[in-house]
C-alpha cells in the first residue's frame, strides 16, 4: 500500500498526492465528441487524424450513432505526410465538400489529434483560413483532442475553451453555467436558480451557435463539471469571475453549489430554503433508498473521467462508503479544492497512472467496488471484484437533486446484482 503512514493533514486537500507515471488506461480527448456533438446541434466535429482516431470514436462508447453523425475523421494518408502544403489543400477540399453536403452546419471544429500534432499541422491557421473562406455562414474553430495533450473529458474542456475567445462581449450581469449536460439536468439547474430570482442565466455550450452567450467583466460563471479548468481560465481572461463550490452531485453537493451562486446573487435564506426544501427532501429520500447497499462498503477509483474526487465526496459523505484510493488523471485544486475540503484525510489521492501498479493495489485492497474504464471492468470482474464503468457517469444524467438517487443507484446496481445472482448449485 502506498498510503502514507501518518497523516498530518486534516482534509484531502492537504493530503500528499501519489503521483504516478506509466501506462495510462484512459481515453484521449477525442472521446468528448461523442456527447458534444449531440449537445451542439449545428456543430460538426472534424477530427484531423488517423484511422485509429476514427476507430476510437466508433468504438469508445460501444455505440454507433447511426443517423449521420455530426462528426467525422479526415484520415491522413501517406501523401499528406509527405508535404504539409498538400495536407492543407486536402483539408480545405474535404471541408468544402463537407459543408456543401451539410448546409445546416454553422460551427465547424477542426479537432487536432496525435498524428496531426506530431506532423505539426497548424489547425489554428487552417481554422482562420477556412473561417474566411466560409464566412459568414460558418465559423471554424480548432482545439486539440489528442492523447499526447488531453485525457478523456479534457476534450470537452479544450472544445469549450476554444469557443470563449469568440463569444460576444457583454456588460450585462449574467450567470453563465459552463459544461455540456443532458438537457433534462440543465433545465433543472436553470429552473432552481430562476426560482430564486437569479437571471439571466446563460449556458456554454449553447445548443445552437446563434444562442451563444456573451461574456464580460460582469459575467459570473459556475462550472457544472470538474474538468473545465482551461475554459474557466479563458473566461477569467475575458473578465468573468468564477464561483467556486463543490460540484452538484448528491443533495449536499447540489445545495452547496446552489448556495454559492445564491450568495453571489444576494438571495436571502428564506428564498433559498423555499426553493430547495422540497427537492432536497426528495433527494435525501432517494439517496437513502439507493444507498442501502453502499453503506459500509469500500470503493476504489481508477483515474478516468475527472469526476472521481467529487463522486468520492458524494459516496463517502452521503452514501456511507469508505474510499480506499481516489485516482484522477490530473488534479486541479482550483476546481476540486472545495470537494477535497469536505473529505477527511485518509484515502490515497493519486494523480496520473501506472496501470499495472495500480491494479496491484486494487488486488491487495480488494475493494467492494472499483470504478474503472471499460477496458478494465470485465478483467476485474473475472477476478471476483465488483466494478462500475466510469463512462456511464459521463453519459447519464447524474447532477442535481432529482438525479441524486439515480447516481447512488449507478454505484449500488453492480453490488445488488452480485447479491442477486445465484449461479452455483443450490447444494
Amino acid at each position, binding site marked *: 500500500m502506498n498510503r502514507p503512514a501518518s497523516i498530518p493533514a486534516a482534509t484531502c486537500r492537504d493530503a500528499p498526492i501519489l503521483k504516478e507515471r506509466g501506462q495510462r488506461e484512459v481515453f484521449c480527448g477525442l472521446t468528448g465528441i461523442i456527447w458534444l456533438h449531440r449537445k451542439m446541434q449545428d456543430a460538426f466535429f472534424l477530427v484531423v487524424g488517423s*484511422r485509429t482516431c476514427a476507430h476510437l470514436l466508433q468504438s469508445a462508447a460501444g455505440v454507433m450513432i447511426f443517423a449521420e453523425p455530426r462528426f467525422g475523421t479526415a484520415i491522413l494518408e501517406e501523401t499528406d505526410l509527405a508535404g504539409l502544403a498538400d495536407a492543407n489543400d486536402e483539408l480545405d477540399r474535404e471541408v468544402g465538400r463537407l459543408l456543401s453536403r451539410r448546409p445546416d452546419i454553422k460551427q465547424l471544429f477542426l479537432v487536432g489529434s496525435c498524428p496531426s500534432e506530431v506532423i505539426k499541422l497548424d489547425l489554428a491557421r487552417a481554422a482562420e483560413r477556412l473561417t474566411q473562406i466560409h464566412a459568414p455562414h460558418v465559423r471554424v474553430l480548432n482545439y486539440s483532442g489528442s492523447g499526447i495533450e488531453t485525457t478523456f473529458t479534457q476534450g470537452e474542456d479544450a472544445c469549450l475553451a476554444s469557443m470563449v475567445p469568440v463569444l460576444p462581449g457583454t456588460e450585462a450581469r449574467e450567470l453563465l453555467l459552463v459544461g455540456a449536460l443532458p438537457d433534462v439536468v440543465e433545465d433543472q439547474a436553470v429552473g432552481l436558480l430562476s426560482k430564486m430570482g437569479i437571471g439571466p442565466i446563460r449556458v456554454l455550450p449553447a445548443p445552437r451557435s446563434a444562442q451563444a452567450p456573451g461574456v464580460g467583466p460582469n459575467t459570473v460563471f459556475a462550472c457544472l463539471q470538474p474538468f473545465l479548468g482551461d475554459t474557466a481560465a479563458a473566461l477569467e481572461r475575458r473578465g468573468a469571475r468564477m464561483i467556486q463550490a463543490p460540484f452538484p452531485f448528491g443533495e449536499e453537493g447540489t445545495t452547496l453549489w446552489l448556495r454559492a451562486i445564491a450568495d453571489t446573487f444576494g438571495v436571502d435564506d428564506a428564498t433559498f430554503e423555499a426553493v430547495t426544501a422540497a427537492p432536497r427532501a426528495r433527494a435525501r429520500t432517494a439517496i437513502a433508498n439507493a444507498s442501502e447497499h453502499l453503506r459500509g462498503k469500500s470503493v476504489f477509483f481508477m483515474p478516468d473521467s475527472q469526476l472521481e474526487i467529487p463522486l468520492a465526496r458524494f459516496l463517502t459523505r452521503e452514501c456511507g462508503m469508505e474510499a480506499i484510493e481516489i485516482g484522477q488523471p490530473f488534479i486541479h485544486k482550483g476546481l476540486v479544492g472545495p470537494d477535497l475540503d469536505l473529505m477527511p484525510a485518509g484515502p490515497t489521492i493519486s494523480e496520473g497512472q501506472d496501470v499495472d501498479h495500480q491494479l496491484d493495489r486494487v488486488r491487495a485492497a480488494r475493494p467492494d467496488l472499483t470504478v474503472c474504464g471499460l*477496458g478494465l471492468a470485465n478483467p476485474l470482474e473475472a477476478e471476483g471484484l465488483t466494478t462500475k464503468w466510469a463512462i456511464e457517469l459521463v453519459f447519464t444524467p447524474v447532477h442535481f437533486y432529482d438525479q441524486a438517487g439515480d447516481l447512488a443507484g449507478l454505484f449500488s446496481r453492480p453490488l445488488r446484482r452480485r447479491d442477486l445472482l445465484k449461479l452455483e448449485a443450490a447444494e
Partner: protein
Amino acid sequence: MKLTVWTYEGPPHVGAMRVATAMKGLHYVLHAPQGDTYADLLFTMIERRGHRPPVSYTTFEGRDLGEDTAGLFKRACQDAYDRFQPQALIVGASCTAELIQDDPGGLAETMALPVPVIALELPSYQRKENFGTDETFYQLVKALAHPVEKTPEITANLIGPLALGFRHRDDIEEVKGLLYEMGIGINVVAPFDATPEDLTRLGAAHVNVLMYPEHAETAARHMERTLGIPFTKTVPIGVGATHDFVAEMARICGIEPKKDMSRLRQPWWSKSVDSTYLTGKRVFIFGDATHVQAAARIARDEMGFEVVGLGCYNREFARPIRALAKAFGLEALITDDYLEVEKAIEDAAPEMILGTQMERHIGKRLGIPCAVISAPVHVQDFPARYSPQMGWEGANVIFDTWIHPLVMGLEEHLLSMFREDFEFHDAAGASHHGGHAPRASQGGQPPVSEADSPRDIYETEKQDPAIADTGSDVMVWLADAERELKKIPFFVRGKARRNTEKFAAERGVTQISVDTLYEAKAHYAR
C-alpha cells in the same frame, strides 16, 4: 485525406492486437500515445473477455516528445517482460509512434531479452486491420515455425481464427468435428489459444486448414513454401462448401471423404414447403470477402434467393470478389465507404441484406431486414450459445439466422389481407419481432434512461431528414395513388414506390396515378 464517418476496419495495430489477444504466452509492446488504450475495450466489452489484452502501451505524452521516447519504449519493454514473463514478445508502433520513428524493433533487439522478439512493421497510413492480422501472424510463423518431424498420423493445423472474429470460437469446434470424422488429428490451432511454443510445432502437420484467408493466407503460403505443408482453398461455410471442403481434404491427404451428416438439417428445412416463400427473395450481400463468397453461394444455391448486389470492404480480396460478382452477372462493390454501400443498397432495393453490423444499421434506416454474416463485430455477435458458421451445424445456424429477420410466408399474405386490422396490420411488422412493436412515446423522458446502457443510448436516434429523403422531388403522387400504395405491404412498399417512380421517370410521367402504379407493377412483374 479522406473523410470517414464509420470504418469497417481499424488500424493495422488493432489487427496485431487481435492476434496477440487470441494467443497465450505472447505479449505485445506497443509504442503509442495515451488514448490508444481504447482498443482494450474491444476485447473486454465486445468479446466479453475476462482478461486484459496482453498489450503494454508506452503511452507517451506531449512533454515526452522532445525528450526520450526511445527510453520510454525500452522501459515499457523491460517492465512487460519482467511482469508477464511471456514466451515471446512482439513489438511495434501505432500510427503516432510511426511518425516519431523510434524503431521499436531495433530498440528491443539491443535489449537482449531472453525470449524471441518479433518486430512488426505495420504501415498505419496505408494499410488496415486485416493487413495487421495477416502480417502479424505471418511474422510470428516466420520467426517461430521451422521444419520439424511430421506427426506419424495425419494431422492438420487450423489457421486463421483469432480474437474478435465472427464466430471463430465455434467454427474451430465444427472444423475439428469434420476432421475427426475423416480420422484427421489436430496438430495446432493458431492463433486462437496457441502459445508461441505451439507455433514452433506447426511444421509437424500434414495439411493447413486455412479457415480465414484474410487473417492467415500469407502464413499459409509461407508454410507451403518453407515447410511443404499444402493448404485448403475451400472455406467450409454452407452445405455445398462443406462437402467440397471434405472432398478437398480427402484429396490432399489421400484418404476417404468420410462424413457424418446426422446433424445436418438444412437441406430438408430448405426443401420443405414452408420455405417456398424464400424463392427469389432479392438479397444484397456485403462484408469481408470470405463470408461474402460463402454467403453468395448459399443464398443462390441453398436458399433459392436472388443475389442482386455483392461486395466486400477488404480490398486485398477485390479480385476474387469481382470474379464472383461476374459469375452472378453483377458488378462487385469494393469499398470501405459505408455511404457508398448505403447508396448501392438503396439503389438495388433488396428485400433483405446479408451484411455486417454497418449494413444492419443501413437496413434499419431503409426498413430492409438484415442478417449479419461477417465482421466487424458487435457484442451481439458473441452469443453464449454454440453458433458456428462452418460445417454442418454452421449450415443449420445460417438457415435459422437468415430467415429470422424475414416475415414468414403465410404471415406475409395475412398481413396484406388484413392490412386494416388494428393489431394485425403491416406497420406492426413480423409477429416474432419485438422491435417493430409500437414504440412508447419518448416525450419528456430524460435522454438517457436508467435502462439504457451506453451501448444503445443512441440507437433510437431519429433519422436525419437531410439523408432520409428518397429523392422523389419532381415526381408527384396523386392522392389516390398514394392511398393505393399504402395498401401494399410495408416490406415491398419501398420497392413498389421506387419501381413506379423509375417507370414514370422513364416515360416522362410527372404525376403518378393509380394506373401508373399498376402499369409499373405489370411492367416489373417477374
